[in-house]
C-alpha cells in the first residue's frame, strides 16, 4: 500500500515482530513502522479482544490505539526518508577461518551453519573428493533461487547455487561421494520444508536402482537411524535449508514446534525387492521406467500407525487426522500390501486408492473447522479460476458450503490426493497414514 503512496502499517502478533523485521529488511523497508498486539488475537474471545485493545503495543510500550494513530501520523525522521542501497555480505568461496577441530565446530555453530550437531569439516580436499560423485562441473548452477517461502514477502533467498556448494554441504552431513547425485537432484527443488507456523517436514523417498547402489535402507528400520545413506542424505537436504536459505527458527522459519523428522528429512527408499509385494513400484505407477532412479519429494507433518488384520479399516482410521483439503500418504509394509491384495481383493494400488477415497469421510462441520479451509479454500473462491482443476475445486467448495454441518462428505476431493508407498521389511501387518502431499518427482540419473 505504501508503494501506492498511502501511509500504511502492519499490525502484528508479538511473536512475529522479529520475523517481520527480517522480511521488511529484505524488502528494503529499513525503518518499518510496526505496531504489535500484546498477545495473539486470532479466534480469541471477547475478553481477549478487549484486553488487547486496552493493552500496549509491545514495540513502543505505548497504549495500542494511540500507538496505531502515532505510527500513521508521526512526522517522518530523516532516517525514515532516506533512500539508498542495502547489501548482503559477499560470501567467499573459502571461509575466512582456520583453527583446530573444536574451533571450527564452534565457528560453524556460532555462524548458524549447522543443525546443532557437529559436522564433517568441508575442507577443499574433502569437497573435491565429494565432487567425484558426479560428472557435473563444480561451478554449474543447480538452482538459480533457493528459498523457504511460498510468497514474495521478504523471504531469504540463496542465489545461483552451484554443484560445489551442494558438495560442501554433503561433506558436512557425512555423505559418501556416490550419494551426491540424489542431493543435486533434491537441490533443484529447494529446501525440505517451507516456513509456516505449522511444523512441516519434507520427505525424500528414493526409487529405482540408485537406492540399492548406495546402500539405502528400504527394509528393517528404514525410517529410523543407523543406515548411513538414509541418515546422511536426509541430513544434507536439511542442511541445505540452513545454509542455502538461512533457516533460523523464529526469524525465517516459523514452525511453532519444529518437527523432529526434519533432522534427516524423513529420507528412505521404497521397498521394491520383497517378493510379497503385489503391486508395481511407485515410480513405475507414476510413468517412469523400472530402471530409472528418481526421488519423490513430499511435505507433511507426520504419520499415525495401526497394526492388525483389518488393514482397510485401519487405513481409514490413521487418515482420520489428515487436515481437510490436504493429501494423504499411506505407508504399507510388504506384508500389508500382500494381505490387501490376497485377503481383501485389492489387486492394484488403484483399487485400494479408490477404496480409501470412497470410504474416508468427515462431516462438513469438521471441514469448516479447519484452518486450512478457512485460510485458503474459502478465500480462494473469490479468485478467477486459473485452470479447469481450480474451477472444479471452487465448485466442490461451494457445494460443501451449501450443506448442513452434519452432512458426511469425502475427506479427499479426488483419489489423486491419496498415494500409497511400500517400505519396511514386511514382518508384520502395519499401516501408517500421514498428511504428506507429493510435491514433485526428480530424476537422479542426469546428476550422476
Amino acid at each position, binding site marked *: 500500500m505504501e508503494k501506492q503512496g498511502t501511509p500504511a502499517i502492519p*499490525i*502484528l502478533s508479538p511473536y512475529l515482530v522479529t520475523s517481520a523485521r527480517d522480511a521488511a529488511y529484505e524488502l528494503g523497508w529499513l525503518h518499518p513502522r510496526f*505496531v504489535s498486539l500484546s498477545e495473539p488475537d486470532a479466534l480469541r474471545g471477547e475478553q481477549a479482544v478487549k484486553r488487547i485493545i486496552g493493552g500496549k503495543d509491545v514495540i513502543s510500550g505505548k497504549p495500542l490505539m494511540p500507538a496505531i494513530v502515532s505510527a500513521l501520523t508521526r512526522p517522518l525522521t530523516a532516517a525514515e526518508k532516506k533512500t539508498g*542501497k542495502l547489501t548482503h555480505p559477499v560470501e567467499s568461496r573459502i571461509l575466512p577461518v582456520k583453527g583446530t577441530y573444536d574451533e571450527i565446530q564452534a565457528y560453524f555453530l556460532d555462524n548458524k551453519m549447522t543443525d546443532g550437531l557437529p559436522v564433517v569439516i568441508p575442507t577443499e580436499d574433502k569437497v573435491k573428493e565429494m565432487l567425484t560423485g558426479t560428472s557435473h562441473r563444480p561451478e554449474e548452477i543447480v538452482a538459480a533461487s533457493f528459498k523457504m517461502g511460498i510468497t514474495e514477502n521478504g523471504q531469504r533467498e540463496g542465489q545461483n547455487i552451484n554443484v560445489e556448494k551442494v558438495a560442501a554441504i554433503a561433506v558436512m552431513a557425512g555423505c559418501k561421494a556416490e550419494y551426491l547425485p540424489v542431493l543435486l537432484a533434491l537441490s533443484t527443488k529447494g529446501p525440505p520444508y517451507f516456513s509456516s507456523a505449522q511444523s512441516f517436514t519434507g520427505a525424500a523417498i528414493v526409487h529405482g536402482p540408485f537406492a540399492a547402489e548406495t546402500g539405502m535402507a528400504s527394509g528393517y528400520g528404514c525410517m529410523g537411524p543407523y543406515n548411513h545413506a538414509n541418515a546422511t542424505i536426509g541430513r544434507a537436504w536439511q542442511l541445505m535449508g540452513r545454509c542455502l536459505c538461512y533457516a533460523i527458527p523464529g526469524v525465517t522459519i516459523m514452525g511453532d514446534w519444529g518437527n523432529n523428522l526434519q533432522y534427516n528429512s524423513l529420507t528412505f527408499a521404497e521397498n521394491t525387492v520383497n517378493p510379497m509385494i503385489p503391486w508395481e513400484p511407485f515410480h513405475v505407477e507414476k510413468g517412469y521406467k523400472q530402471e530409472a532412479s528418481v526421488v519423490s519429494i513430499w511435505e507433511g507433518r507426520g504419520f499415525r500407525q495401526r497394526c492388525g488384520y483389518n488393514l482397510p479399516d485401519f487405513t481409514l482410521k490413521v487418515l482420520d487426522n489428515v487436515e481437510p483439503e490436504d493429501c494423504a500418504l499411506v505407508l504399507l509394509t510388504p506384508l500389508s500390501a500382500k494381505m490387501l491384495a490376497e485377503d481383501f481383493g485389492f489387486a492394484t494400488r488403484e483399487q485400494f486408492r479408490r477404496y480409501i477415497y470412497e470410504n474416508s469421510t468427515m462431516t462438513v462441520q469438521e471441514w469448516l473447522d479447519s484452518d486450512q479451509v478457512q485460510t485458503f479454500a474459502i478465500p480462494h473462491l473469490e479468485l478467477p479460476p486459473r485452470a479447469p482443476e481450480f474451477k472444479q475445486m471452487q465448485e466442490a467448495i461451494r457445494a460443501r458450503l451449501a450443506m448442513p454441518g452434519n452432512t458426511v462428505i469425502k475427506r479427499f476431493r479426488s483419489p489423486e490426493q491419496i498415494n500409497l508407498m511400500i517400505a519396511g521389511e514386511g514382518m508384520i501387518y502395519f499401516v501408517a497414514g500421514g498428511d504428506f502431499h507429493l510435491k514433485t518427482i526428480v530424476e537422479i540419473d542426469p546428476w550422476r
Partner: protein
Amino acid sequence: MTDKEQIYRDIMNPMAQQKPVWDVIPLVERPATLEGKTVYIINQRWGGTKAHEPLLLAIKQWLEENIRDIKVVYKAKRGSYAFPDAELWKEVGEKADAAMIGIPH
C-alpha cells in the same frame, strides 16, 4: 601433532550468496492528523475472515469514537493472505489517506 592440535584451513563456505544489493524504500509522508481522513483497515484473512475480524472491528470502533470526522473503511482482501490483491491496493492508493493491515497469526 595430535588430532586435537591439527589446524584446519581452506574450508569451503556452505552458505549461499544472498541478493547482493537492493533499494531502500523510504516511508510515505504521514498526514498530521487522522481527523477528517479516510482510513482503510484491511483484513488479510490469516486463519480465515472471522479469525481477526473482532479485533479489527474493535479498532475501527475506537477510531470512530475517538477521532473527529474520521471515515474508516473495513475490507477483507480478496483471496488468501498469500494472494496479492492488486485491485484493492489500487483502491487504497486512490481513496485512503492512511491504511493498516493485519493480522498475521
